[in-house]
């Protein structure tokens, strides 16, 4: 299942993805809704043979958060599937049973981007330290490290910053 076959198969089943490849062994797709994304991921894992879960990249897209899942198969084609989740209600299902190795990165999305991933096993905070204030998501664009006081571990943006 090399790059061209993957693109053909994906575009046939999920035309909304516009799977494209700008260089060998890479397939990028457009952002999708969580429901459609889960279907595509299950389809890629079971039928297309993409069983290796490599990585999850969280990106801040203005008012919603993008999660790009990077998976690959035996021919090492890197397929990037993306889903978009609004910041107001960032709920996502965990893909732990399909990709056990991605549970770790999903746990990281919980801490760094504030995405609520359901189905993750319980565990302490990760990767941020235990003394990190709740509700602070450092990787979001509006979170400015300058206003984070490291000694008292509190985040106090100046007042007019909040008003804006």
């Amino acid at each position, binding site marked *: 299942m090399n790059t061209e076959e993957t693109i053909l198969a994906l575009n046939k089943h999920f035309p909304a993805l516009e799977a494209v490849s700008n*260089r*060998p*062994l*890479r397939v*990028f797709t457009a952002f999708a809704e969580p429901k459609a994304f889960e279907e595509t991921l299950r389809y890629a894992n079971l039928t297309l043979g993409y*069983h*290796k*879960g*490599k*990585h999850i*990249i969280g*990106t*801040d897209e203005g008012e919603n958060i993008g999660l790009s899942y*990077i998976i690959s198969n035996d*021919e*090492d084609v*890197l397929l*990037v599937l993306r889903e978009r989740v609004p910041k107001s209600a960032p*709920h996502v*299902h965990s893909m732990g049973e399909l*990709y*056990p*190795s991605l*549970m*770790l990165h999903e*746990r*990281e999305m*919980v801490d760094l981007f504030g995405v*609520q*991933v*359901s*189905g*993750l*096993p*319980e*565990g*302490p*905070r*990760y*990767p*941020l*330290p*235990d003394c990190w204030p*709740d509700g602070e998501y*450092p*990787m979001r664009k509006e979170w400015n*490290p300058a206003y984070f006081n490291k000694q008292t571990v509190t985040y106090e943006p100046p007042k007019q910053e909040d008003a804006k």
Partner: protein
Amino acid sequence: MSDYREKNKVVVQIGPQHPSLKEPGSFKITLDGEKVERAVIEIGYNHRGIEKACESRNYIQALYIIERVCGICSHAHTSCFCQAFEEIAGLEVPRRAHYIRGIVGELERLHSHLLWLGVASHEIGFDTLFMYTWRDRELVLDLLARIGGNRVNYGVNTYGGVRRDLEPELMQDILTVCDLLEEKLKYYADLALTETTLIARLRGIGTLLPEDVRKYSAVGPVARAAGIMDDVRITEPYGVFREIAVNGITDDHCDVYGRTLVRVKEMLEAIRLIRIMVKEIPDGPISVRPPRKLPVGESLSRVEAPRGEDIHYIRSNGGESPDRVRVRAPSEANWHGMSHMLEGFQLADVPIIIAAIDPCYSCTDRAIHLIGDGINQLTDWAQIRALSIEQYKARGIDPGSIKIREF
């Protein structure tokens, strides 16, 4: 779990400060006698927030931070980052730069594997081999100091090529060091095959079978020791490996002993590659002028670091500083299988199994919290959840603080 069995279990906390760990990582090992029954791994002590820092720096400064993600495989990280940059910018790197990157990359693989062999033998109490391997490693470090100016973060890479050129007599010294190292490595290779106490300690522990490797998607020597050919230089040749073929090394022991053999053979392979590269290095410029601002775009680049496949992702919005930088270090992929590898073996094997994946915590600065349920007893989901919540409340960590909504 009957209460009595639970009570006489010893929970050993290894780390974050422990002589066998060169870096902070903590392991809560539940022991049944001397046998490891459950392993809970927490790293994340090295989480410094590198990705956020890169977003507020321009590309040249970001390269400095990327180089210091990990002290041992710094060249692998910078080459991967530069490749991603060059892909977006569409730069054509001169062939000589590719060759120099390849030589420094293989030298780094040599010193990283020698370092691992030393640390692993220190874990099993074989200090003589530890001293020998680190003494030989000094030869490689002095070479890297002459090439890059610094023993550890040599900073040879820059966008569009390399910063330092290799003079002819430096290349001659590289060849002499290679000859010296080759005969020492042959001594270590047959030492690993014949020394009985070494084999007794390494054989049959920390096994990761091929199907587990696929399940936990382990990379690098851990996957190659289970017979799965997982080498980016072969599956997706980059830079100099488009012209020079690498013959992959696999082994089918699937355990710590297999990983030792794979790493020793890889060192011999690295020496062979260095000799070819030094012989066939073309003349020409060593770098091309990179643009200050990167056009809009994103790229995903892969490099074969000493510990496995290293993935870097850059997304630029046309400005001077990257919009998003993401680093997936090789050790991170190997952590997932760790608690699976630890269970069922002795406490004495825990340090060597942890060392066997050659963990680079600073690369990973991630933590895994896999509760390996060693007890084969059918419990449904709610029971496991309740048990684990009560378990963590007992240790003062209230998991309720993570707001996970139940569907």
